[in-house]
């Protein structure tokens, strides 16, 4: 058993440019939760300086500031689109936050009216209403998890204490689906989510999970964190792996503290 140790590769896409509002916490959460289970996890940084993205089991991209985002759009869409498409079709796990989310869509229309093409993997488009802070979707975010997603999470996580996701959103871009049928992370209970009209949060396609939730999203939502790891494990090992449940009292305490306050 020793000779093939269970391991995963976590690729952090553009860690320098796309890492804001604590997004690094998602890397910490995934790493620790693998460690605690005895899954060896290697974190590989893939930034602008790399000609190719190294192959991984889980890919993570956070949010960024406008200027950095343009650099990343350029690099990713022009040079690395094919690789990403292949990985998505292989059901690899992606977690995309904020700017990373927008970048996987069809295009991003910035406040000056400039249109920037995205990867086109998610059937979404994003528009920035204006450069004013008042137009930002900013604040705590509470989402009721989509029933279908919750059901899937149940295969990886036995005791979901609350069928919700908590986080903090901070974005000017408003995201809309370009198709009638699409899958999200859930319905917004408190905050804005993708845009103030639909009150939906995030997007799902194959094993791509996109969200506007900083906070960071994973530490306070251990059910989502474990689901991502579980999907990656299944992808790599089929059903031949041992899967432990962890003690998440401290995680749920933090989750419920902010959830209960928002619902007051």
């Amino acid at each position, binding site marked *: 058993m020793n000779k093939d140790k269970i391991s995963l590769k976590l690729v952090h896409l553009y860690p320098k440019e796309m890492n*804001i*509002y*604590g*997004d*690094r*916490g998602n890397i*910490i*959460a995934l790493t*620790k939760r693998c460690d605690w289970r005895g899954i060896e996890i290697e974190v590989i940084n893939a930034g602008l300086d790399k000609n190719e993205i190294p192959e991984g089991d889980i890919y993570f991209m956070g949010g960024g*500031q*406008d*200027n950095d985002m343009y650099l990343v759009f350029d690099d990713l869409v022009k040079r690395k689109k094919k690789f990403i498409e292949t990985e998505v079709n292989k059901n690899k796990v992606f977690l995309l936050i904020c700017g990373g989310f927008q970048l996987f869509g069809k295009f991003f229309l910035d406040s000056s009216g400039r249109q920037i093409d995205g990867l086109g993997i998610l059937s979404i488009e994003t528009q920035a209403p204006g450069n004013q*802070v008042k137009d*930002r979707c*900013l*604040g*705590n975010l509470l989402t009721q998890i989509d029933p279908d997603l919750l059901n899937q999470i149940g295969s990886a996580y036995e005791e979901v204490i609350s069928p919700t996701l908590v986080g*903090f959103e*901070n974005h*000017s871009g408003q995201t809309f689906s370009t198709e009638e049928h699409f899958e999200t992370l859930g319905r917004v209970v408190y905050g804005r989510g993708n845009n103030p009209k639909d009150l939906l949060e995030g997007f799902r396609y194959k094993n791509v999970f996109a969200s506007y939730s*900083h*906070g*960071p999203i994973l*530490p*306070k939502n251990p059910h989502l964190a474990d689901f991502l790891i579980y999907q990656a494990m299944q992808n790599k090992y089929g059903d031949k792996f041992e899967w432990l449940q962890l003690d998440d*009292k*401290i*995680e749920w*305490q*933090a989750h419920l*503290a*902010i959830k209960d306050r928002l619902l007051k």
Partner: protein
Amino acid sequence: MLKLVVAINNQATISVVKLVQKAVRLLGRGDGTALPGLISEKMSPKLLKFFADQIPHKILITGTNGKTTTQIALSSILRASGKRVLANASGSNMRRGLLSLFISKCDRRGKLNYDYAVLEIEEATLPKVVQELNPEVMVFTNLYRDQLDAYAEIDRTKEMFVKALKLSPQAKVVFNGDDPRLSDILKGLENECLKFGLDPSYILDFKYEGEHLKNQKNDLVASKIKINDDLGTRFQIEDEEYSFASPGIFNVYNALAAVASAKSLKILIPDIKKGLLLMKTPFGRGEVLKKNSITYRLLLAKNPAGLNLVFQLLKHTNKPNLIILLNDKIADGRDVSWIWDADFELLKDIGPNMVILGGSRAEELLLRLKYTFEDVVKMGERAYLIDKKIQVFFTPDIKELVNFAEREKLSKYFYVIHTYTAMLEFRKRLLGKALNE
């Protein structure tokens, strides 16, 4: 005629606002700078310039960290050289606060009697007030990620600085030459500049973002930095030794900013040394509070860079007892995600004996600790043991936390790391009042 109208108008505003200030104080509604400021802004839009024009030398200090300490250091130096100095506090670093300050310090006719104004200015406010204030010196401490939910993005802060500088070609600019973001902004400006920085061997402790300019040379360099046992600090510039009571290497930057500004104002070295030595430790920035034979050393941290510096400082202590307080009110920044950007992993080097967690987001702190160390074991209702050696107590309510620390007599000395409003609550609980004066 117009001048007379303006004069009468100013006079009326000043009288009204002085009355309001008195009322606010009598009602005991804190330091109350917002309402008087609002009234004066509405009644006399030109009042800020009217006041600023009366003070011959104006120094504006801005940047993400260290504004207050720099202000206090420079004010102390100027006072040590016999000047009459008007300075503001961080609660009045925006337009309305400044107006309120001027009105509270002027006589009934609106006259101000000062040689120097040393004013810290909030970053987004700078371009809006810089023309009226007409500074002789502008000081930029650094440009870190700070309160990003307040002004959205650093790029925007950068733009604000550039805008302010373009409006002030007359100002001498004193800035942190070790910060690549600032160097970048100041490239190509015509202002007379004075750059300060640390001896390169110390810069590794600071996570500046951006590429360092090659062959960058600072005009004033601090070297031979020593931290005393009482966490006071000494350093040298050329062959002169300076010392001051604020803790930590990061405060050397603030002291250095003040020394550089004082030099550009032609203040003599003996006065500079004296002023630094006499400077009071600013509110919440290493301030010492004592109550019931327990000493608390207060260390403000409101962003990852600031917290990392506090952690670096605590490496100089031996098995410290820590209280960490995290609030998420507007003045703290509602988004607490920054604690995940801060290097809590430094706590492994610090090796605290005990950590007490409190504040409106104490649960988040406990979670951050869990993801810093290997294992956390619950020992009691509010007690945990981390990695078999660090005791953790969890008391979100700050009132209860202070009672708990006093009652249990856990230690005689605590370092208290806190966000802004958490400090106000803590002081209120400990001393019966949130603010001095």
